C-alpha cells in the first residue's frame, strides 16, 4: 500500500528530462497537454489519498471488533449524507478536469497558423518517409526517419500511411496521431526549444514495430534553412574510386531497386531515400546510430539486426560491401 504512494512521489520527481517524454515539453502543444497532466496528478492524487485515508480509518476503527453475529441493514442518515458529499466532490472534480481538458483540446485543434511549414510524414513498415513543401513553387524534397524543424515556427504535419496503421508520436513536442491507410490526418507542432528529440511509432504495426523511431531536430531558423538548401541538392558525386565502385554496385544490384539517391539512376521509392544519408543521425529507423561500422553491419545482415524488415540480405562480396559503405558515407 505504501509502495504506490512512494512511487507516486518518485514519479513527481523523476523523468523531468529526456528526449522522448511528455514530461519534458519542448513544444507548445506538449506544454499545454502537460498542464492537464499536472492538474490530473494533483486532483487524482487528492482523491486517492482520500480513499486510502477512509479505508485506513475504517480498518483502524474496527481493529478490535471482529466477527460476531451479523447486523441487520440499518438506515444511516450520516452515511447517506457522506455519500452525497462524496458524490458531489467527485462530480466537481470531474467537471474541473473535463472542462480543463476540453479547453486544452480546443486550443490544440485551433492552431490556424497561416505561415506554417508544411510536411508530409508517411509511415511504412518500418520507417518514416518525410517530405517537405516550401516556397511559392512546391519544391518538395524527401528524407527519412529524421525531421528538422525551425524553432518557434508551427509545422503542419500531414500524416499518411503506405501500408498498415502507424502512429506518429514525438512526446516532447505533441501528442500522437495515427497514420491510417485511406485517411488523412494533420498534426500541428510548434517547437519552442532547440534540441534533438526522439519519436517512435505508437501503434502496433507488425514485426519491427519496436524499431520504428525517428529523430526530430529542432534548430534555429538559419540552420534549418541551410539544411533545407542542402537537402534540395542532388547527391554528391563520389570522389574516391572506392566510392565510385560503390555507386556502381548500388545501382546495378538490388539497392537501387528500392532506394533513391537523387541525381543517380537509383530511383526506388519503397525504402528510405538515401540522397543525404550520411548527414542523418541514425540508420534503419533509429535502430542504430549512424556510423560506417553500423552501415556495414546493416548492409551485410539486415535480417539479423531487424528481422522481418523489408531490406533483404543482398549477397555482396566484402569488396562490394565496403565500397557501398564508402559510397553511402560520402553522401553528406
Amino acid at each position, binding site marked *: 500500500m505504501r509502495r504506490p504512494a512512494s512511487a507516486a512521489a518518485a514519479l513527481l520527481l523523476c523523468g523531468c528530462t529526456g528526449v522522448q517524454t511528455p514530461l519534458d515539453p519542448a513544444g507548445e502543444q506538449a506544454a499545454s497537454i502537460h498542464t492537464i497532466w499536472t492538474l490530473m496528478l494533483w486532483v487524482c492524487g487528492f482523491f486517492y489519498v482520500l480513499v486510502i485515508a477512509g479505508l485506513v480509518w475504517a480498518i483502524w476503527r474496527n481493529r478490535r471488533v471482529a466477527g460476531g453475529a451479523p447486523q441487520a441493514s440499518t438506515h444511516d442518515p450520516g452515511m447517506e449524507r457522506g455519500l452525497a458529499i462524496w458524490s458531489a466532490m467527485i462530480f466537481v472534480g470531474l467537471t474541473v478536469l473535463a472542462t480543463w481538458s476540453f479547453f486544452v483540446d480546443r486550443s490544440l485543434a485551433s492552431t490556424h497558423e497561416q505561415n506554417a511549414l508544411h510536411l508530409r510524414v508517411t509511415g511504412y513498415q518500418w520507417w518514416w518517409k518525410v517530405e517537405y513543401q516550401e516556397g511559392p513553387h512546391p519544391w518538395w524534397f*524527401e528524407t527519412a526517419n529524421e525531421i528538422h524543424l525551425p524553432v518557434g515556427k508551427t509545422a503542419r504535419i500531414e500524416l499518411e500511411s*503506405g501500408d498498415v496503421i502507424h502512429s506518429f508520436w514525438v512526446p516532447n513536442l505533441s501528442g500522437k496521431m495515427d497514420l491510417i491507410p485511406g485517411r488523412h490526418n494533420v498534426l500541428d507542432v510548434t517547437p519552442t526549444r532547440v534540441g534533438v528529440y526522439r519519436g517512435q511509432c505508437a501503434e502496433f504495426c507488425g514485426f519491427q514495430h519496436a524499431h520504428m523511431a525517428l529523430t526530430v531536430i529542432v534548430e534555429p531558423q538559419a540552420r534549418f534553412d541551410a539544411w533545407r538548401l542542402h537537402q534540395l541538392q542532388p547527391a554528391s558525386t563520389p570522389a574516391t574510386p572506392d566510392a565510385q565502385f560503390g555507386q556502381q554496385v548500388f545501382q546495378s544490384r538490388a539497392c537501387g531497386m528500392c532506394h533513391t539517391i*537523387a541525381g543517380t539512376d537509383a530511383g526506388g521509392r519503397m525504402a528510405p531515400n538515401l540522397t543525404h544519408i550520411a548527414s542523418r543521425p541514425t540508420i534503419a529507423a533509429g535502430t542504430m546510430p549512424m556510423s560506417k561500422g553500423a552501415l556495414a553491419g546493416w548492409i551485410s545482415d539486415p535480417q539479423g539486426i531487424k528481422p522481418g524488415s523489408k531490406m533483404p540480405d543482398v549477397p555482396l562480396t566484402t569488396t562490394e560491401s565496403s565500397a557501398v559503405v564508402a559510397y553511402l558515407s560520402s553522401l553528406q
Partner: protein
Amino acid sequence: MAEVERRRTWWWIAAAVVLAALIILFLLKQTHYSPPAAKMTTPAAYNPGQPTADDGQWVMPAKDYASTRFSGLNEINVSNVANLRPEFTFETGINKGHEEAPIVVGGTMFIVTPYPNKVFALDLTKPGAPLKWSFEPKPAPASQGVACCDVVNRGAVYWDGKIIITTLDGVVIALDANSGAQAWRTQLGDINRGETITMAPLVVKGKVLVGDSGGETGVRGWLTALDAGSGKIAWRAYNTGPDKDVLIGPDFHPFYKMDQGTDLGVKTWPPDAWKTGGGTVWGWISYDPELNLIYYGTGNPGPWNADQRPGDNKWTSGIFARDPDTGQAKWFYQLSPHDIHDYDGINEIVLLDLPIGGKVRKVLVRPERNGYVYVIDRATGQVLSADPFAYVNSSKGVDLKTGELQVNPDKVTQVGKTVRDICPSANGAKDWNPSAWSPRTGLLYLPHVNMCMDWQSAEVSYIAGTPYVGAEVVMYGGAGGNRGAFTAWDPVKRRAAWEIKEDLPIWSGALATAGDVVFYGTLDGWFKAVDARNGQLLWQFKTGSGIIGQPVAYKGPDGREYIAIMSGVGGWAGAIVSGNLDPQDPTAALGFVNATQDLKKRTNTGGTLYVFALPPRR
C-alpha cells in the same frame, strides 16, 4: 498590325478563290484521264502555302502540314459511296495493332507495320498492287517490353525520294522510295531507358522531326530534328529540364503567366524528378510555313501518380511552338498543368484560319484528351476558346484569362484515395487517333470515346527500363451506353453539329473528302462512310479485324479515287485482343481492358490493308 492582318486576309481570300476555281475546273475536267504521276515529285502537301490542286497523293499521315486529313478528291461522294467495294487487300502478316496510315506517292503505296516495323512498297500501277519491295529493319525484340500500349507505328513519311520511318527500338531510317535501299539510319532512343518511337516522323524544311515514346516508363521526352539528307541530328529539344535543354531562349514568349519564367522545367518538379518526367512526343506535328513554326504536343508527366511530382511539371501535357530551323521555342501553353489523369497533350493540331470574333484568325484547333476543343491563336498561344466535346467532370472548364484548366477538386487523384467516376478516362475523351477537317462543311470530325475511370494512385519506383506508372486504373463506358462517339464539331460556333454513337471506343483516325464523305473504322472491324453534313451512315464494310488505323484517300494511277485503311486490332484499346490479355483483371492494360472486355468475342487479331474504290465506269 491590323494592316498586316488585313493584308493577310485578302491574301487568303484570294487563295481560296483560286483554289475554288481550280476545284471547279477539276470537277469539270474530271472525265479527262490524266496520266499517272508515276514520277515522284514534291507533293502538294509540302507546298501548303501554294494554291494548288489536290494532287491525289498522301505523302504524310496527316495529309498536309496543316493536319487536315482532307482529301480534295470527290469521285466518291454522298450519292455513290454506297457502291464502294474492295479493290485489293494486302496482308502484313503481323498480328499487332495497325495504327499506321498508308502513304501514297506516285504510283506506290508504302506501309510500315507495327513491330517488327516492316516496310512494304506496293506497286499501284499494276493490277492487284503487287509488292514492289519490302524492308525489314529488325528492331531489337526487347523493345516490345517497354512499349506501353501495343507495339504500334503510326506511319511513314515521304520526302524527296525517301521514305522515312521510325522503329520501335528508337531508330529513324530513311529508305530510297524506289528501291527500298537504306539511305541512312540513326539511333535516337535507348530502350534500356524505356525510350521507344511509335510516331510518324514529319519532314519540315529538310528536317526530320521525331519524338520519343515512353511516358509510362519514366523517359525524358524530346523532339529531335535530323537532317533529312544525312540523318544527322540537327537539334534536340527536351520537354523537361533546364531552359538550355528545352531550347528556350530570348524568343520564348508564352502567352500566359503560368508558363513564364526561367528553368520552369526544373523548378516545377521535385529535385531531379524532371529527369524521369515524361513529356514525350509521340503524336502529331503540324507546321505553318508562313509563321515558320512547328506545333506539337507533349505527353503526360511521369509517373501517373501525381503525388510523386508535385508542381506544374513543365513542359508536359502542353503545346510547343518552335522554329523548325533552330528548334528554339516560340511559345508554350500547358493544357493540363500538373496532370493528374494521364491526359497527354499529344493529339493532332489542325491549323486553320477561322472567323472568330468577326475576323479571320490564324488558329490551331486541338481536340484535347482532357475533353476540350481548344482554339488557340497559333501566333501567340492565346486560348480563344475551349469547349468540351464530350462529357467532362475531371475539370470545370478553362480560365481564358489565366489559361488554367479548372481541375475539379473531387476528381484529384492522390495516393491513399480511390477516385471514382473520372470522366474522361486516362486515354482521354479522344486519344491520338486524329480527326479530319473539311473546309467544305467547316466541321472537324472527331473520332473519340465516351469513357470514365476509377483511379488509385500508388507509390512507384523508378527502375530504368520498367514501367513507371504508379496507378491502378479501371475504365468503363460513360453515361449513355456508348463507349465511342464520332462527333462533327463546329469550331466557330463552338458546338457539335452532329454525333454518332458507337458501342465500342473509336480508336481509328478520320478522313474527310471533298465528296462530303467522312470515313472511320470501329474496333470490331467495321469501316464506315458517313455523310459529312449530317452523319448519316452511307456505307459500311466489315474488315477482317478491328480498325485502329488512319484512312487515306488517293488517286490511283488509273485516275480513280481510292480509299485505303489498315485493319488490325490492337493499340491501347485493342490490347486485350492483340496482347491476349485477361479480362478477369480489370486493371490490365492500364485499365483499358475493363472497358473492352467483350472485344475478344467481337474481333480477332489481324493485319490487312483494305483498299476500296467505286466500280470502274464502263
